[in-house]
């Protein structure tokens, strides 16, 4: 009797456990499916607008393709041409490097300086912050057209320079002064960078400054040994964004080049404003050298990846994270 009743009892126990396990597995499955359903817009978008383009861009970069006729496989020709025979490629690389090496550091330094001015002002902080931030809100196209007018050889800026008996450059008409003109515009639009630094500086604990005061540190030492280390994560962030934006640099240059005369080629005067993206745009969408443009975009992809990785590796040496990672 005991064995007869015991066996079914054990069996049902086992069946119940199995049932529970199955149910748990099924609910895990359901949760997984639900999560994927929630994720689906991005999954579709990621495949259609990222994975597929990046992969097929690699394929196109080995072909000659003008959209009208089928792509023709040319092996490494595009890359060989780019590095050995395309002089404008190197001009574009030089100009882009100029943006990264001159404009980005200037903007970060100016952003820190303006944020320092703001934290020292006790009254009217809101007003000054709004004024400093305002230029950032102006759409790039409008800002670029505005600066074309401000910096035209007979325009307001040169009038002021003439009044002060300073040299009056031709700005966007002179290959040597075109990029400095764009740098001026970048400094005018420092607001975004400044706001981020301001927030970081306001987050620095007061006790650190008080401790520095007790140790007899002057304002410069306080800046060097307290402020700078404490805002270094934000400097790091700004530099990475700056490098990426250097590659993205296009709109200002395009508007400025075309503003002088409609028929001006992209990058004028004399290719001094030919940036990496300008060159890509020229090759791909004005000359319809799609294969070559794809090769240019792949080189860009690789360089950005390498730059970001290098910056992240170097950051361990100079970025100070308070209490762990960010």
């Amino acid at each position, binding site marked *: 009797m005991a064995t007869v009743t015991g066996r079914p009892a054990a069996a049902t126990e086992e069946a119940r456990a199995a049932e529970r396990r199955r149910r748990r597995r099924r609910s895990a499955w359901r*949760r997984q499916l639900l999560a994927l359903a929630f994720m689906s817009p991005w999954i579709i978008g*990621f495949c259609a607008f990222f994975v597929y383009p990046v992969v097929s861009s690699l394929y196109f970069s080995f072909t000659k393709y003008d959209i009208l006729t089928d792509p023709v496989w040319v092996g490494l020709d595009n890359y060989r041409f780019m590095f050995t025979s395309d002089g404008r490629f190197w001009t574009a690389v030089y100009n882009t490097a100029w943006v990264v090496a001159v404009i980005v550091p200037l903007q970060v330094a100016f952003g820190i300086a303006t944020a320092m001015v703001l934290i020292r002002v006790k009254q009217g902080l809101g007003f000054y912050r709004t004024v400093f931030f305002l230029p950032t809100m102006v759409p790039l196209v*409008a800002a670029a057209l505005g600066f074309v007018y401000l910096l035209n050889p007979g325009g307001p800026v040169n009038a002021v320079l003439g009044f002060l008996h300073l040299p009056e450059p031709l700005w966007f008409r002179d290959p040597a002064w075109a990029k400095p003109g764009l740098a001026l515009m970048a400094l005018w639009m420092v607001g975004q960078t400044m706001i981020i630094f301001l927030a970081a500086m306001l987050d620095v604990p007061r006790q650190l400054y008080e401790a520095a005061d007790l140790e007899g540190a002057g304002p410069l030492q306080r800046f060097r040994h307290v402020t700078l280390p404490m805002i270094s994560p934000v400097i790091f962030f700004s530099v990475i964004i700056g490098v990426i934006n250097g590659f993205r640099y296009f709109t200002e240059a395009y508007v400025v080049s075309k503003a002088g005369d409609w028929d001006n080629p992209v990058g004028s005067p004399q290719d001094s404003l030919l940036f990496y993206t300008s060159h890509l745009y020229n090759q791909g969408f004005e000359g319809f050298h799609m294969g070559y443009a794809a090769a240019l975009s792949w080189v860009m992809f690789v360089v*950005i990846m390498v730059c970001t990785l290098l910056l992240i590796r170097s950051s361990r040496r100079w970025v100070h994270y308070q209490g762990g990672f960010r």
Partner: protein
Amino acid sequence: MTAISTPGAGAAAMPRRQVPAAIRRRRRLLAIANHSVAIALSIMFLLPFVFIVSTALMTNQQMGSLSVWPRPFRWSNFTDLFEFFPFWRFAWNSLLYAGLGTVGVVLSGIPVAYALSRMRWRGRQASFVLLLSTLMLPVQVTIVPLYIIFVRLGWIGSLKPLIVPLFFGDAFTIFLLRQFFLTIPQELSDAARVDGANDLQILLRVIVPLAKPAIAAVALFNFLYCWNDFFSPLLYAGNNPDAWTLAISLQQLTQLSRGILANLQMAASILFTLPVLVIFFLAQKVFVEGVTLTGVKG
């Protein structure tokens, strides 16, 4: 005694009275110095606005001269503009791109951000890393094949290539929303679950109402990004003037009407910028906090 003690008491009292005065004076000087620097910078930031607005109000003759102040104020520059180009059609296109784009970005971003922050499932961490890696890459990396796809679909010369992809999630929006969703206490979701709510109900009735400030900031960023965007509209709609946005038309103004003068060009720039500045002043708090969120927590 009194003669000796009085100066002694004075000497003791004097520093107490004098030091605050000196510090006060130093503080006042410092405040004045700080304000002068801030005012000088303010003037530098505002001067371009002044020049542009005053030019927009000048007559053609006055522009050649060196005077700064318009004499007379020519307000009709702003109405003359409409004869040069179909301003309202371009404004409508900009509004379509920015409006529909924002709707798409927000609608597609919310569920993805929820799955990435408040659901447990396999592959969540990997998906997030992939999302972050796409955040780093500029659009230029993928434009060649995308352009080819849109050519095959017959979408070039319309706003579709600009708007449709935005309904499939934007990495930056998802990232910001996820960061915000993570700050909402888990107990709120748990309580709703005990009451029998499923994930969709939790998202719509608990998370979305609490995340309104973040959603507003994200919507604002996207609207302005689309409104200001130049590269994508130039690429996909540049060949068809019917599909131009204001940003494109503004740049093409010199071609549309050869010899258009700077005063009208500046007036057009002002009309293009004005909505952005109005939005900025109305939503300044959302804005500055949003930018801070991107920088510090990013």
